[in-house]
């Protein structure tokens, strides 16, 4: 049989618009192409703006990663202007980062990824009593009675029976790639609903410090939420108590629901070892200062692993023009002059669309086929995200990560090689959520201790006024987002942004191939995967979801050609 082209567009249960085209032959995928199909063109928009406003624009790169782009942005501007933020502001930002990781990973597991492993319709056949026994055998979560699961099943029966299946309509129910027994399916459906209810609460930590979620507010130089424990309109004990309450609820939810479910579901799929992908992994390191970033002492150490060799780990420096480059061999852009890779400091985003005019059936994958660029480290495609963080941390010898990974492998009865798969990615995400939720508590305690010691400062005023800034300067803010390595680059001329560029996690993972046909991580992960029915792309979305795609981030939204800043009268001062 001839090679068959499978098109999956839209890939749902992700952020943004992703299209996968895959060549199917002899029962499996033999080639794959990843295409981001949205572009917003913020590059021109950023020119000439006040750098203190930049976070509010680039935060809107993504409403799912709502916090971390703003953090990278204020860090880039603070780096450029030489601002050191007060300790309270640093701790509050770290609490908000950890909050985002925990919330985002739980939502990903239950609402974006679970339906690739969990058959909702099969849950109708479950015995609620056996489900209760199963649930109580893996967790002390209080909602585990026979009555509880009977109620959930009745709700589900009514829903399915109504013929209006809503978000579950046309799912791949009954597909042979589903392996869970009905009871595990029913338990997972119940926890899908519990997670939906819980996730809206943990974000209240963002609301306390940033005023709202999604898209909380930030401030170059610190935070805007003044601390005064003896005032009614500031951060005081009542506000902090609400934060503590949400942290404790999060610890319970992760320990009693998410982690037990992850292992319960994972144990049924541990033989499904597909979705490995590129063999190189990168983390910028996170929740550390510049001294500890590339060491085992960071909460998430930075570094590079090549060819899955965990015995060696190299340092990474996003500032180094030789290390990080973006190529556009298969992306709808053009470079003036040299068409080779470019470091973000010399980035350029000139649109050159060569794809078909919509409506279209198929992309020309021999030519350019995506709005996403191809970032590389020393010319190599790198996977970023939770798995990369756990592998780099493991290779660096970080004790917490090492204990966590070894314990998980032992519990599942599998070797390290099992990590290099879709399931490995999903496992790593859960393990780091557990690390993050513990970190959330210790950081909250550190904030309280600092306030108790008499420090209430949240903002550094000295370089707020543009008259204190150098005429030209540049900075970078780099960190780890839930989906992987993130860096924002800014150049400031005469008090205005003259270049802004973000190289984001999904750009790394969803990248198209390069000129030498070196595949991007999504593409490489799909190749070799068997499919039971090429018309029903369950195996494809399962692998793609294991990366947790975020396409609004990826479609190279923010980079500015160095050029004339806009005339001030474009703005309504």
């Amino acid at each position, binding site marked *: 049989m001839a090679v068959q082209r499978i098109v999956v567009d839209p890939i749902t249960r992700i952020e943004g618009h992703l299209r996968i085209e895959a060549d199917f032959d002899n029962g499996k995928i033999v080639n794959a192409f990843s295409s981001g199909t949205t572009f917003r063109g913020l590059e021109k928009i950023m020119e000439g703006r006040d750098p203190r406003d930049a976070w509010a624009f680039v935060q809107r790169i993504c*409403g799912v990663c709502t916090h971390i782009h703003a953090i990278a942005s204020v860090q880039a501007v603070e780096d450029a202007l030489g601002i050191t933020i007060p300790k309270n502001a640093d701790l509050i930002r770290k609490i908000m980062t950890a909050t985002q990781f925990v919330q985002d990973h739980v939502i990903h597991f239950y609402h974006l990824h679970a339906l690739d492993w969990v058959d909702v319709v099969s849950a109708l056949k479950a015995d609620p009593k056996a489900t209760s026994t199963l649930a109580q055998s893996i967790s002390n979560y209080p909602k585990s009675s026979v009555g509880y699961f009977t109620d959930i099943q009745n709700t589900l029966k009514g829903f399915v029976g109504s013929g209006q299946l809503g978000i579950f309509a046309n799912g791949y129910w009954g597909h042979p790639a589903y392996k869970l027994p009905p009871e595990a399916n029913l338990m997972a459906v119940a926890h899908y609903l519990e997670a939906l209810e819980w996730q809206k*609460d943990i974000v209240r930590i963002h609301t306390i410090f940033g005023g709202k979620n999604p898209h909380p507010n930030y401030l170059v130089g610190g935070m805007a939420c003044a601390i005064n424990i003896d005032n009614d309109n500031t951060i005081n004990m009542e506000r902090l108590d609400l934060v503590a309450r949400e942290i404790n609820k999060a610890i319970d939810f992760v320990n009693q629901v998410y982690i037990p479910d992850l292992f319960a579901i994972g144990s049924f799929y541990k033989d499904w070892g597909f979705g490995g992908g590129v063999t190189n992994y990168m983390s910028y390191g996170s929740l550390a200062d510049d001294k500890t970033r590339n060491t085992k002492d960071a909460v998430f150490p930075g570094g590079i692993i090549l060819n899955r060799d965990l015995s060696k780990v190299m340092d990474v420096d996003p500032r180094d023009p030789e290390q990080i480059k973006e190529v556009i061999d298969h992306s709808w852009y053009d470079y003036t002059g040299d068409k080779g890779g470019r470091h973000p400091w010399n980035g350029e985003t000139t649109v050159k669309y060569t794809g078909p005019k919509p409506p279209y059936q198929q992309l020309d994958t021999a030519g350019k086929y995506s709005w996403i660029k191809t970032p590389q480290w020393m010319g190599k495609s790198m996977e970023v995200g939770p798995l990369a963080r756990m592998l780099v941390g493991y290779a660096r010898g970080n004790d917490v990560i090492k204990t966590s990974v070894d314990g998980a492998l032992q519990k599942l009865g599998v070797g390290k090689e099992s990590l290099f798969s879709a399931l490995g990615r999903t496992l790593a995400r859960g393990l780091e959520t557990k690390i993050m939720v513990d970190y959330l508590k210790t950081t909250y305690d550190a904030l309280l201790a600092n306030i108790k010691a008499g420090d209430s*400062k949240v903002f550094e005023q000295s370089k707020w006024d543009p008259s204190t800034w150098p005429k030209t300067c540049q900075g970078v803010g780099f960190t780890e987002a839930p989906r992987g390595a993130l860096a924002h680059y800014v150049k400031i001329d005469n008090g205005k942004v003259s270049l802004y560029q973000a190289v984001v996690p999904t750009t790394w993972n969803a990248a198209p191939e390069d000129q030498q046909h070196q595949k991007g991580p999504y593409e490489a992960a799909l190749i070799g995967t068997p499919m039971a029915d090429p018309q029903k792309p369950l195996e494809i979305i399962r692998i793609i979801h294991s990366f947790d795609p975020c396409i609004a981030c990826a479609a190279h939204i923010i980079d500015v050609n160095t050029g004339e800043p806009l005339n001030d009268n474009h703005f309504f001062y």
Partner: protein
Amino acid sequence: MNETFYQEMRRKGYSRRDFLKMCGLLTAVLGLEASFTSRIANALETKPRLPVIYLSLQECTCCAESFIRTAHPLLSELLFNMISLDYMETLQAASGLQAEEAKMKTMQDYKGHYLVVVEGSIPLNDDGIYCTIGGRSAKDILLEAAQNSVAVIAYGSCATNTCVQGAYPNPTGAVPVKNIVAHVPVIDVPGCPPIAEVIAGVIAHYLTFDRLPELTNLGRPKAFYNHRIHDNCNRRAFFDAGMFVENFDDDGAKQGWCLYKVGCKGPTTYNACAITQWNNGVSYPIKSGHPCIGCSEPGFYDNFPMYEHLAHVPITAMPFEPDKIGKWITGLTVAGVAAHGVATGVIKRLDKEPRKDEEAGK
């Protein structure tokens, strides 16, 4: 669609008490008196579940994230009891062809009876290449879905005013929903994103009262966008008393004073932030110490810098003894409305300033 809402809840094992409790919560979110609960209950006892097609176009998904945070009604209540969310890329199980088929089925089976919610703007430049789904342009997708819908809710600032991608110079030619959809009602629900309970409240309003909500002159539901944030701000007394934060984290900030001088757009922004507040009533930007950035107002990104205020807003403290005002109060209210109009006029004049892309005829 033959079974009523209430019948369905009962069949699913909910008690009448559960049902009435939910009606009570709905009454609260709609800002109505408790006596309306029985009317809502009556409405839900006679109404079927509403099919909803949720389109994600040129956007960042903050609206979907906000949507799933709704606390009353809970999203699970919405999904299981109130609406049938037949298409929403962010949540639906099916991908690709199977996802598109689910949408087509709803458009055919419920012709003239389904609601469309749109998150995102529509980029018109270059044949729509800047946002395609299933190989089709955002404009085609929107027009097709809107055609036989009851109404279209333009949800969030992208859909109502194009948000950041529409800021100068609007490189992709992004336009809001109302520029594309003309033949069915369009309800603007702006904000970046809107408050979670607002979108749920608008849908519940339609379900309960069997009619679309009343709109302001900007096409937004009065239930959520009738007043300026300034009108209901918890720091308003400090504005009127002339007590301002001069710099972040200064003594005024530590007393929770007014943020007007650090750029607050509350006096020119119409939204429910100060009333409903965010994430189940926890806080809102001003309460947490950051000035309002005006995210629900058209063109707000071109009204920055964020930390400078745009125009003079007069202090409106009353130099009268309340006990002595008596019948003058009516006159004062009129004066208050006039002051309110001045503030509104400021932002509107700004809107009329042509942007360069408009001048270029784009």
